[in-house]
């Protein structure tokens, strides 16, 4: 999948990946640092954290399952669309998979721009698109012992 030219493996930069899946907790400070750039005036970020409660039910923990191949394609498509549609410098996103406890980070979006209008708008666009289109499913376990896949009407 990596776009390296076999004829000049050292001089060709690997295809930029802006979207990643992570099976383990990840560090937003490091991700933010990767977006540092002297042209940036505005950095907007969004994070989804696992809440102790969802729709009035007490959540004990959850699991995210992804169709990884399609998720990566969709993630790159969404971020490329944000770069085309908004006056921003860069945009990255990481989504967790696997088992998460209350308080854990589920998704991070980071956007850099010259000015804040575009940074906010693109950040919002990205998380909305991730929620709408990303082939990732949440399996919630509740305090009452019940558990279920979430398949909200689209």
């Amino acid at each position, binding site marked *: 999948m990596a776009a390296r030219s076999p004829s000049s493996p050292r001089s060709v930069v690997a295809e930029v990946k802006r979207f990643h899946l992570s099976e383990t907790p990840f560090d937003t400070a490091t991700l933010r640092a990767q977006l540092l750039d002297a042209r940036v005036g505005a950095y907007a970020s969004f994070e*989804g954290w696992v809440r102790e409660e969802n729709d009035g039910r007490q959540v004990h923990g959850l699991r*995210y*399952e*992804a*169709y990884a*191949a*399609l*998720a*990566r*394609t*969709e993630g790159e498509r969404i971020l490329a669309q944000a770069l085309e549609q908004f006056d921003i410098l860069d945009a990255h996103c990481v*989504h967790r998979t696997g088992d998460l406890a209350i308080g854990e980070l*589920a*998704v991070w979006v980071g956007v850099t721009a010259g000015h804040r209008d575009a940074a906010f708008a693109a950040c919002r666009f990205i*998380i909305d698109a*991730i*929620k*709408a*289109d*990303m*082939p*990732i*499913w*949440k*399996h919630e376990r509740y305090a009452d012992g019940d558990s279920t*896949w*979430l*398949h*909200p*009407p*689209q």
Partner: protein
Amino acid sequence: MTHATVLYFASLRDAARIDAEAVQTQAADLAALYAELQQRHGFPMAREQLRVAVDGAFARWQDAPRDGSEIAFIPPVSGG
């Protein structure tokens, strides 16, 4: 006859009790393929609730199944 691999996720996988299977089908399009598999596994979800993907990209229900392809029926997502 088309040979393809079908992937199941989330509640579709729970219903099928498998996460993937090799299928042989004469279905003319992906909609007809879902109808076949829905009958076989008793999937509760109507096709209208799902999307379909082929080889890691969203596809159209009226696309014909391709030989050797990887097909996934995508139940309503809940990431983010």
